[in-house]
Protein backbone atom coordinates (compact mmCIF):
# COMPACT_ATOMS: atom_id res chain seq x y z
CA UNK A 1 0.00 0.00 0.00
CA UNK A 2 2.66 2.48 1.01
CA UNK A 3 4.54 2.10 -2.30
CA UNK A 4 1.62 3.28 -4.47
CA UNK A 5 2.12 6.41 -6.53
CA UNK A 6 0.70 9.40 -4.65
CA UNK A 7 -2.43 10.92 -6.18
CA UNK A 8 -2.76 14.46 -7.52
CA UNK A 9 -3.36 17.21 -5.01
CA UNK A 10 -6.06 19.84 -5.37
CA UNK A 11 -5.13 23.12 -3.77
CA UNK A 12 -7.58 25.92 -2.98
CA UNK A 13 -5.81 29.15 -2.15
CA UNK A 14 -7.29 31.74 0.22
CA UNK A 15 -5.96 34.94 1.72
CA UNK A 16 -4.01 33.35 4.52
CA UNK A 17 -4.12 29.63 3.90
CA UNK A 18 -4.32 26.79 1.39
CA UNK A 19 -6.75 23.87 1.53
CA UNK A 20 -5.10 20.77 0.08
CA UNK A 21 -7.22 17.80 -0.88
CA UNK A 22 -6.03 14.53 -2.31
CA UNK A 23 -8.06 11.54 -3.40
CA UNK A 24 -8.10 9.16 -0.46
CA UNK A 25 -4.75 7.35 -0.67
CA UNK A 26 -6.09 4.53 1.53
CA UNK A 27 -9.27 3.92 -0.46
CA UNK A 28 -7.88 0.63 -1.78
CA UNK A 29 -7.99 -0.94 1.65
CA UNK A 30 -11.68 -0.14 2.14
CA UNK A 31 -14.27 -2.75 1.26
CA UNK A 32 -18.00 -2.96 1.64
CA UNK A 33 -18.90 -5.86 3.89
CA UNK A 34 -22.10 -7.70 4.55
CA UNK A 35 -22.98 -7.18 8.21
CA UNK A 36 -24.31 -10.73 8.48
CA UNK A 37 -21.00 -12.30 7.49
CA UNK A 38 -18.76 -9.71 9.12
CA UNK A 39 -16.27 -11.21 11.51
CA UNK A 40 -15.90 -8.46 14.10
CA UNK A 41 -12.20 -7.46 14.26
CA UNK A 42 -12.78 -5.71 17.60
CA UNK A 43 -14.05 -8.92 19.20
CA UNK A 44 -11.09 -10.79 17.72
CA UNK A 45 -8.68 -8.19 19.14
CA UNK A 46 -10.30 -8.27 22.57
CA UNK A 47 -9.89 -12.02 22.61
CA UNK A 48 -6.24 -11.68 21.66
CA UNK A 49 -5.77 -9.09 24.42
CA UNK A 50 -7.38 -11.44 26.93
CA UNK A 51 -4.81 -14.02 25.82
CA UNK A 52 -2.08 -11.70 27.08
CA UNK A 53 -3.68 -11.18 30.46
CA UNK A 54 -1.64 -13.88 32.19
CA UNK A 55 1.34 -11.57 31.81
CA UNK A 56 -0.32 -8.42 33.14
CA UNK A 57 0.54 -9.01 36.82
CA UNK A 58 4.23 -9.38 35.94
CA UNK A 59 4.15 -6.31 33.71
CA UNK A 60 2.48 -4.27 36.45
CA UNK A 61 5.13 -5.38 38.96
CA UNK A 62 7.84 -4.26 36.51
CA UNK A 63 6.17 -0.84 36.12
CA UNK A 64 5.99 -0.50 39.94
CA UNK A 65 9.68 -1.42 40.30
CA UNK A 66 10.55 1.25 37.75
CA UNK A 67 8.54 3.83 39.71
CA UNK A 68 10.22 2.81 42.98
CA UNK A 69 13.67 3.02 41.35
CA UNK A 70 12.93 6.52 40.04
CA UNK A 71 11.81 7.58 43.52
CA UNK A 72 14.94 6.07 45.10
CA UNK A 73 17.12 8.11 42.73
CA UNK A 74 15.31 11.28 43.79
CA UNK A 75 15.70 10.47 47.49
CA UNK A 76 19.42 9.98 46.87
CA UNK A 77 20.25 12.79 44.42
CA UNK A 78 17.29 15.17 44.59
CA UNK A 79 15.09 16.37 41.74
CA UNK A 80 17.57 16.62 38.87
CA UNK A 81 15.82 17.23 35.53
CA UNK A 82 16.57 13.65 34.43
CA UNK A 83 15.28 12.20 37.71
CA UNK A 84 12.12 14.29 37.54
CA UNK A 85 11.47 13.21 33.95
CA UNK A 86 11.98 9.54 34.79
CA UNK A 87 9.62 9.75 37.79
CA UNK A 88 7.02 11.46 35.62
CA UNK A 89 7.35 8.96 32.77
CA UNK A 90 7.16 6.00 35.15
CA UNK A 91 4.01 7.40 36.79
CA UNK A 92 2.58 8.41 33.44
CA UNK A 93 3.05 4.92 32.01
CA UNK A 94 1.22 3.44 35.01
CA UNK A 95 -1.53 6.01 34.56
CA UNK A 96 -1.94 4.89 30.95
CA UNK A 97 -1.38 1.15 31.27
CA UNK A 98 -2.75 0.13 34.66
CA UNK A 99 -6.42 -0.02 33.66
CA UNK A 100 -5.56 -2.17 30.64
CA UNK A 101 -3.65 -4.49 32.96
CA UNK A 102 -6.62 -4.70 35.34
CA UNK A 103 -5.44 -2.20 37.98
CA UNK A 104 -7.55 0.92 37.35
CA UNK A 105 -7.12 2.30 40.90
CA UNK A 106 -3.33 2.13 40.58
CA UNK A 107 -3.74 4.14 37.38
CA UNK A 108 -5.88 6.69 39.20
CA UNK A 109 -3.29 7.11 41.97
CA UNK A 110 -0.55 7.46 39.34
CA UNK A 111 -2.58 10.17 37.62
CA UNK A 112 -2.67 12.12 40.89
CA UNK A 113 1.13 11.84 41.13
CA UNK A 114 1.51 13.00 37.51
CA UNK A 115 -0.60 16.08 38.28
CA UNK A 116 1.64 16.98 41.21
CA UNK A 117 4.82 16.67 39.13
CA UNK A 118 3.31 18.57 36.23
CA UNK A 119 1.59 21.41 38.06
CA UNK A 120 3.70 22.07 41.17
CA UNK A 121 5.47 25.40 40.54
CA UNK A 122 8.61 24.17 42.31
CA UNK A 123 9.01 20.41 42.48
CA UNK A 124 11.73 20.73 45.15
CA UNK A 125 9.20 22.29 47.51
CA UNK A 126 6.58 19.58 47.18
CA UNK A 127 6.35 17.82 50.56
CA UNK A 128 8.39 14.62 50.24
CA UNK A 129 5.67 12.71 52.11
CA UNK A 130 3.07 13.61 49.47
CA UNK A 131 5.14 11.98 46.75
CA UNK A 132 6.13 9.03 48.94
CA UNK A 133 2.50 8.35 49.92
CA UNK A 134 1.49 8.22 46.27
CA UNK A 135 4.24 5.76 45.42
CA UNK A 136 3.49 3.60 48.44
CA UNK A 137 -0.21 3.64 47.58
CA UNK A 138 0.40 2.56 43.98
CA UNK A 139 2.62 -0.28 45.15
CA UNK A 140 0.13 -1.36 47.80
CA UNK A 141 -2.79 -1.32 45.38
CA UNK A 142 -0.86 -3.55 42.99
CA UNK A 143 0.51 -5.84 45.71
CA UNK A 144 -2.81 -6.34 47.51
CA UNK A 145 -4.86 -6.35 44.32
CA UNK A 146 -6.31 -9.82 44.78
CA UNK A 147 -6.95 -9.42 48.50
CA UNK A 148 -10.48 -9.83 49.78
CA UNK A 149 -12.15 -6.45 50.33
CA UNK A 150 -9.11 -4.51 49.20
CA UNK A 151 -10.91 -2.69 46.41
CA UNK A 152 -12.91 -0.63 48.91
CA UNK A 153 -9.70 0.20 50.80
CA UNK A 154 -7.94 1.13 47.54
CA UNK A 155 -10.81 3.40 46.50
CA UNK A 156 -10.72 5.21 49.82
CA UNK A 157 -6.93 5.47 49.68
CA UNK A 158 -7.10 7.00 46.22
CA UNK A 159 -9.92 9.38 47.19
CA UNK A 160 -7.95 10.72 50.14
CA UNK A 161 -4.69 11.02 48.22
CA UNK A 162 -6.36 12.82 45.34
CA UNK A 163 -8.10 15.17 47.77
CA UNK A 164 -4.84 16.10 49.50
CA UNK A 165 -2.99 16.48 46.18
CA UNK A 166 -5.70 18.68 44.66
CA UNK A 167 -5.84 20.84 47.77
CA UNK A 168 -2.07 21.29 47.64
CA UNK A 169 -2.09 22.11 43.92
CA UNK A 170 -4.93 24.58 44.31
CA UNK A 171 -3.07 26.47 47.03
CA UNK A 172 0.34 26.59 45.31
CA UNK A 173 -1.21 27.60 41.97
CA UNK A 174 -3.47 30.32 43.35
CA UNK A 175 -1.51 32.92 41.33
CA UNK A 176 -1.23 30.76 38.19
CA UNK A 177 -4.72 30.69 36.66
CA UNK A 178 -3.69 28.65 33.62
CA UNK A 179 -2.57 25.81 35.89
CA UNK A 180 -5.63 26.14 38.08
CA UNK A 181 -7.82 25.80 34.99
CA UNK A 182 -5.97 22.64 33.97
CA UNK A 183 -6.14 21.20 37.48
CA UNK A 184 -9.85 21.80 37.85
CA UNK A 185 -10.92 20.99 34.28
CA UNK A 186 -12.40 17.58 33.54
CA UNK A 187 -10.95 15.47 30.75
CA UNK A 188 -12.61 16.17 27.40
CA UNK A 189 -11.68 12.91 25.75
CA UNK A 190 -14.67 10.63 25.42
CA UNK A 191 -14.41 7.23 27.08
CA UNK A 192 -14.87 4.44 24.54
Amino acid at each position, binding site marked *: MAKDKPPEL*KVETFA*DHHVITQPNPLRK*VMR*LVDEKNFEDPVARAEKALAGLSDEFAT*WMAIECDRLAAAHATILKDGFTPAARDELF*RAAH*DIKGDAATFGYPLAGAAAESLCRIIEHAPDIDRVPAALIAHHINAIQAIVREHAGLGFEAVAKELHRKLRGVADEYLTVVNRDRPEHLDAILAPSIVPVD
Partner: protein
Amino acid sequence: MYGIDFNKLRFLVCDDNAHMRRILRTLLHSFGAREVYEAEDGATALEMYSHYVPDIVITDWAMPIFDGIELAQMIRQPDSKGNPFAPIIMLTGHSEKRRVTVARDAGVTEFLAKPISAKGLYQRILNVVVSPRPFIKTKNYFGPDRRRNTNNAYIGPERRGTKEPDVIPQPSLLDKARSPG
Protein backbone atom coordinates in the same frame (compact mmCIF):
# COMPACT_ATOMS: atom_id res chain seq x y z
CA MET B 1 -20.84 -1.03 6.18
CA TYR B 2 -17.14 -0.53 5.52
CA GLY B 3 -14.42 -2.94 6.50
CA ILE B 4 -10.68 -2.53 6.17
CA ASP B 5 -8.15 -4.87 4.60
CA PHE B 6 -5.60 -4.47 7.35
CA ASN B 7 -3.21 -6.82 5.59
CA LYS B 8 -2.63 -4.10 2.97
CA LEU B 9 -1.74 -1.46 5.55
CA ARG B 10 1.70 -0.69 6.93
CA PHE B 11 1.85 0.64 10.51
CA LEU B 12 4.57 2.39 12.46
CA VAL B 13 4.12 2.19 16.24
CA CYS B 14 6.18 4.45 18.48
CA ASP B 15 6.09 4.02 22.26
CA ASP B 16 8.93 3.86 24.76
CA ASN B 17 7.02 1.34 26.87
CA ALA B 18 7.66 -2.23 25.69
CA HIS B 19 4.43 -3.50 27.27
CA MET B 20 2.34 -0.96 25.38
CA ARG B 21 4.12 -1.81 22.13
CA ARG B 22 3.31 -5.48 22.70
CA ILE B 23 -0.36 -4.62 23.28
CA LEU B 24 -0.51 -2.46 20.16
CA ARG B 25 1.19 -5.14 18.07
CA THR B 26 -1.26 -7.75 19.38
CA LEU B 27 -4.27 -5.57 18.58
CA LEU B 28 -3.06 -4.63 15.09
CA HIS B 29 -2.17 -8.22 14.20
CA SER B 30 -5.54 -9.44 15.40
CA PHE B 31 -7.23 -6.77 13.25
CA GLY B 32 -5.37 -8.43 10.35
CA ALA B 33 -2.28 -6.22 9.94
CA ARG B 34 0.93 -7.94 8.87
CA GLU B 35 3.36 -5.06 8.64
CA VAL B 36 3.83 -3.42 12.03
CA TYR B 37 7.13 -1.64 12.61
CA GLU B 38 8.10 -0.51 16.11
CA ALA B 39 10.24 2.29 17.50
CA GLU B 40 10.91 3.13 21.13
CA ASP B 41 11.64 6.83 20.70
CA GLY B 42 10.80 9.67 18.35
CA ALA B 43 14.21 9.82 16.66
CA THR B 44 14.15 6.13 15.74
CA ALA B 45 10.54 6.48 14.61
CA LEU B 46 11.48 9.31 12.26
CA GLU B 47 14.20 7.21 10.68
CA MET B 48 11.80 4.29 10.29
CA TYR B 49 9.17 6.62 8.88
CA SER B 50 11.51 7.64 6.08
CA HIS B 51 12.67 4.09 5.48
CA TYR B 52 9.42 2.12 5.62
CA VAL B 53 6.95 4.82 4.46
CA PRO B 54 4.09 3.61 6.68
CA ASP B 55 0.45 4.26 5.84
CA ILE B 56 -0.50 5.06 9.44
CA VAL B 57 1.61 6.19 12.42
CA ILE B 58 0.54 5.46 16.00
CA THR B 59 2.61 7.32 18.56
CA ASP B 60 2.81 7.94 22.27
CA TRP B 61 3.36 11.50 23.52
CA ALA B 62 5.84 11.26 26.41
CA MET B 63 9.07 9.66 25.19
CA PRO B 64 12.80 10.27 25.63
CA ILE B 65 15.06 11.98 23.01
CA PHE B 66 12.16 13.59 21.22
CA ASP B 67 8.54 13.08 21.95
CA GLY B 68 5.41 12.30 19.95
CA ILE B 69 4.59 15.97 19.39
CA GLU B 70 8.03 16.63 17.93
CA LEU B 71 7.69 13.50 15.80
CA ALA B 72 4.38 14.78 14.40
CA GLN B 73 5.94 18.17 13.69
CA MET B 74 8.86 16.55 11.86
CA ILE B 75 6.53 14.42 9.73
CA ARG B 76 4.32 17.42 8.91
CA GLN B 77 6.97 19.29 6.97
CA PRO B 78 5.26 20.20 3.68
CA ASP B 79 8.53 20.45 1.78
CA SER B 80 10.20 17.37 3.21
CA LYS B 81 11.29 14.45 1.06
CA GLY B 82 9.01 12.06 2.93
CA ASN B 83 5.23 11.84 2.92
CA PRO B 84 3.87 14.67 5.09
CA PHE B 85 0.25 13.49 4.76
CA ALA B 86 0.30 10.16 6.62
CA PRO B 87 -2.38 9.90 9.31
CA ILE B 88 -0.97 10.19 12.82
CA ILE B 89 -2.89 8.70 15.72
CA MET B 90 -1.67 9.93 19.09
CA LEU B 91 -2.18 7.37 21.83
CA THR B 92 -1.41 8.90 25.19
CA GLY B 93 -2.14 9.06 28.88
CA HIS B 94 -2.55 12.83 28.50
CA SER B 95 -6.20 13.70 28.15
CA GLU B 96 -6.54 17.30 29.28
CA LYS B 97 -8.09 19.81 26.88
CA ARG B 98 -4.84 21.76 26.67
CA ARG B 99 -2.95 18.64 25.61
CA VAL B 100 -5.50 17.71 22.96
CA THR B 101 -5.17 21.21 21.51
CA VAL B 102 -1.36 20.99 21.43
CA ALA B 103 -1.55 17.63 19.64
CA ARG B 104 -4.07 19.00 17.14
CA ASP B 105 -1.86 22.00 16.43
CA ALA B 106 1.14 19.71 15.83
CA GLY B 107 -0.76 18.04 12.98
CA VAL B 108 -2.02 14.95 14.78
CA THR B 109 -4.97 13.38 12.93
CA GLU B 110 -6.67 11.46 15.73
CA PHE B 111 -6.28 11.48 19.51
CA LEU B 112 -6.82 8.34 21.59
CA ALA B 113 -6.55 8.52 25.36
CA LYS B 114 -5.18 5.60 27.34
CA PRO B 115 -6.27 3.19 28.67
CA ILE B 116 -6.35 1.69 25.21
CA SER B 117 -9.28 -0.36 24.00
CA ALA B 118 -9.60 -2.48 20.87
CA LYS B 119 -12.76 -0.60 19.97
CA GLY B 120 -11.17 2.84 20.40
CA LEU B 121 -8.14 1.96 18.30
CA TYR B 122 -10.22 0.35 15.56
CA GLN B 123 -12.51 3.37 15.43
CA ARG B 124 -9.60 5.81 15.03
CA ILE B 125 -8.09 3.69 12.24
CA LEU B 126 -11.48 3.47 10.53
CA ASN B 127 -11.80 7.27 10.75
CA VAL B 128 -8.46 7.97 9.07
CA VAL B 129 -9.04 5.38 6.35
CA VAL B 130 -12.68 6.11 5.51
CA SER B 131 -12.94 9.83 6.27
CA PRO B 132 -9.62 11.56 5.62
CA ARG B 133 -9.75 15.32 6.13
CA PRO B 134 -8.22 17.84 3.71
CA PHE B 135 -4.92 19.39 4.75
CA ILE B 136 -4.51 23.05 5.64
CA LYS B 137 -1.32 25.00 5.06
CA THR B 138 -0.87 28.37 6.74
CA LYS B 139 2.16 30.38 7.73
CA ASN B 140 2.51 28.37 10.92
CA TYR B 141 0.42 25.22 10.46
CA PHE B 142 0.47 22.26 8.13
CA GLY B 143 -1.78 19.34 8.92
CA PRO B 144 -5.28 17.91 8.76
CA ASP B 145 -8.15 20.40 8.81
CA ARG B 146 -8.75 21.27 12.45
CA ARG B 147 -12.42 21.95 11.68
CA ARG B 148 -14.16 18.64 12.15
CA ASN B 149 -17.70 19.95 12.03
CA THR B 150 -19.71 22.69 10.37
CA ASN B 151 -20.95 25.06 13.03
CA ASN B 152 -24.18 26.64 11.78
CA ALA B 153 -24.17 29.04 14.71
CA TYR B 154 -20.80 30.53 13.66
CA ILE B 155 -21.15 34.27 13.02
CA GLY B 156 -17.54 35.39 12.40
CA PRO B 157 -15.92 36.12 9.03
CA GLU B 158 -15.83 33.21 6.58
CA ARG B 159 -12.26 32.73 5.41
CA ARG B 160 -13.02 29.95 2.95
CA GLY B 161 -15.13 31.13 0.02
CA THR B 162 -16.09 29.04 -2.99
CA LYS B 163 -13.88 28.90 -6.04
CA GLU B 164 -12.50 26.34 -8.44
CA PRO B 165 -9.49 24.58 -6.96
CA ASP B 166 -6.10 24.65 -8.65
CA VAL B 167 -4.77 21.20 -9.44
CA ILE B 168 -1.09 20.51 -8.99
CA PRO B 169 0.68 17.23 -9.63
CA GLN B 170 2.33 15.74 -6.58
CA PRO B 171 5.82 14.38 -7.27
CA SER B 172 6.26 10.77 -6.28
CA LEU B 173 8.22 10.08 -3.11
CA LEU B 174 10.92 8.50 -5.25
CA ASP B 175 11.27 11.69 -7.33
CA LYS B 176 11.36 13.74 -4.15
CA ALA B 177 14.08 11.53 -2.73
CA ARG B 178 16.16 11.84 -5.93
CA SER B 179 15.86 15.60 -6.17
CA PRO B 180 18.80 17.56 -4.71
CA GLY B 181 18.43 19.51 -1.50
